[in-house]
């Protein structure tokens, strides 16, 4: 059988996703049919199929991995040079209401939510009692008196249980907080150097004053009630746009037919290679309940004002690691030859095991292989050489700072 290794994004367990390219009719058909029956569809499913999307199971949804006639590398490069459109409606969107909403979210995350300026957001983490990461998420403080939260599709059940349990604890003790799940909204990501120009033509908001991580409620392509947040998962300038479900297709079609620049639909494969080049973590692969923020090189998400005992779950472990460093750290690796992919072993010159690749792929923009791995502190300095075991070969690799490619976040300058 041709076994196709596809790094399954947002999976809660580090595992190989095997997609059978062509197996005896019976088995693959049986598997496909039984799993197809259980998959969710976003409101853009037909839109994907009509645009030649190759649909695959992902986090319980049928999502486009790529689109016909456009290779993954070409799709990736198009996002970096022009503009790509991603469906991210499978992600969990929630709103937190009530006067105690900031304290509420602070009780679960490492962010200083209270300090967020109106209509700005930040990347933060839900942590567990052992200091591990439950999920990574973006929280935005809106001027409509709610916190807007976007978290991973693969962690949906877990995140909802966490949030709902905490709401109950808060309300039982007299605090006022309410959780609203926004399954009524689709979510798309428009990414690339042309994204702003494309969106500006479809939006009355002055985007030149919308900075990275800022958010605004506005109409897009004539559709009221959209939220535009200047953020993304590619390292490029771009926007995530929340749209009422029944209007999602029309907004996407309007953006695809933009005369300002060529907007191409882009799928999960390009999304993965783009975020990896940008050094961004994929929950389930690079960060898990067994990795702490300090190990993951995400200490910067822990707001200075939150670095006190008991401020968030796992604070004891995390504060100790902030002080004394962690034994391992997530680093970037570059190599040539056969690409390093999870769970390839990383070894030193004596063949001693140092760690495992947690993400890896050939970089379409750079023409080399890029990967991430957790290595002991003795081997985290940029320039350190290690080897990666790929099948039966030892491939030399070099530790590199991330991002692998320069980011283009919009700062107004």
């Amino acid at each position, binding site marked *: 059988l041709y076994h*196709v*290794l596809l*790094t399954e994004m947002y999976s809660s367990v580090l595992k190989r996703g095997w997609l059978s390219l062509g197996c005896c009719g019976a088995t693959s058909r049986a598997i496909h049919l039984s799993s197809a029956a259980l998959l969710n569809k976003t409101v853009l499913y037909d839109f994907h199929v009509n645009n030649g999307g190759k649909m695959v199971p992902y986090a319980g949804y049928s999502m486009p*991995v790529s689109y016909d006639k456009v290779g993954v*590398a*070409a799709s990736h490069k198009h996002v970096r040079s022009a503009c790509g459109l991603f469906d991210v409606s499978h992600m969990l969107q929630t709103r937190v209401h009530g006067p105690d909403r900031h304290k509420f979210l602070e009780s679960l995350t490492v962010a200083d939510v209270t300090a967020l300026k109106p209509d700005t957001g930040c990347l933060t983490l839900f942590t567990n009692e052992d200091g591990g990461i439950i999920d990574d998420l973006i929280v935005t403080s809106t001027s409509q008196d709610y916190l807007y939260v976007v978290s991973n599709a693969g962690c949906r059940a877990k995140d909802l249980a966490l949030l709902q349990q905490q709401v109950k604890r808060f309300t039982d003790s007299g605090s006022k907080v309410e959780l609203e799940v926004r399954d009524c909204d689709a979510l798309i990501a428009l990414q690339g150097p042309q994204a702003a120009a494309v969106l500006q033509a479809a939006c009355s908001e002055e985007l030149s004053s919308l900075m990275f991580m800022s958010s605004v409620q506005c109409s897009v392509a004539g559709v009221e009630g959209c939220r535009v947040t200047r953020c993304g998962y590619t390292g490029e300038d771009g926007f995530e746009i929340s749209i009422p479900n029944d209007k999602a297709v029309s907004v996407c079609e309007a953006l695809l037919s933009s005369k300002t620049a060529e907007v191409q639909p882009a799928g999960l494969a390009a999304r993965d290679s783009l975020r990896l080049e940008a050094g961004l973590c994929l929950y389930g692969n690079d960060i898990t309940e067994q990795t702490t923020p300090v190990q993951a090189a995400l200490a910067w998400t822990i707001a200075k004002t939150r670095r006190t005992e008991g401020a968030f779950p796992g604070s004891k472990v995390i504060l100790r690691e902030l002080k004394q460093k962690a034994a391992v750290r997530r680093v970037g690796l570059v190599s040539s030859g*056969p690409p390093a992919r999870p769970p390839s072993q990383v070894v030193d010159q004596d063949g001693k095991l140092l760690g495992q690749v947690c993400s890896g792929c*050939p970089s379409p923009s750079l023409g080399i292989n890029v990967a991430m791995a957790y290595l002991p502190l003795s081997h985290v300095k940029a320039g350190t050489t290690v080897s990666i075991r790929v*099948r039966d070969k030892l491939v030399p690799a070099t530790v590199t700072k991330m991002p692998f490619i320069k980011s283009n976040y919009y700062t107004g300058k």
Partner: protein
Amino acid sequence: MAAVNVLRSFTRNINLGNHSAKATIRWHFQIQRQINTSSCFMADRRYSLKHEWVQLSGTIGTVGITNYAQESLGDIVYAQLPEVGREYSIEDECGALESVKAASELYSPVSCKITEINTEVEEQPALINQSPYEKGWLFKMELIKPEEFKELMEEAEYEKFLKTLDS
């Protein structure tokens, strides 16, 4: 004098309960016939279930992947070919092909000894996508068990097999 094996195969579609999937059962008949070899022989191309093709000239064969395989893989960025001189049994892992999104092992479609590899493809893996049957050939080999070749699918059968996969 050469023996020409005429292969007859039959397929039957079976309904597998509520999955409604199709299983293929192949029954083989072999009829041996003696034929004069002074006439030219056809360079025969056959296909494996794993989307490799084998083109035979006598007992030397050329192996590559099919158009279906290269399309599914996407742009190939790295080709790891088998070792020249090494022997592989049928379905042994003998190499790998890598694209941005996928890594796919190469399996030896027949038991063979590797005589040559396509170094052009090692340098320019995109050739496999551009020309999977010609310039993108992967390796040449000597058959160890010639009868295995006839177990592979002929073109028509492979095309039919592909139709069962498209969902």
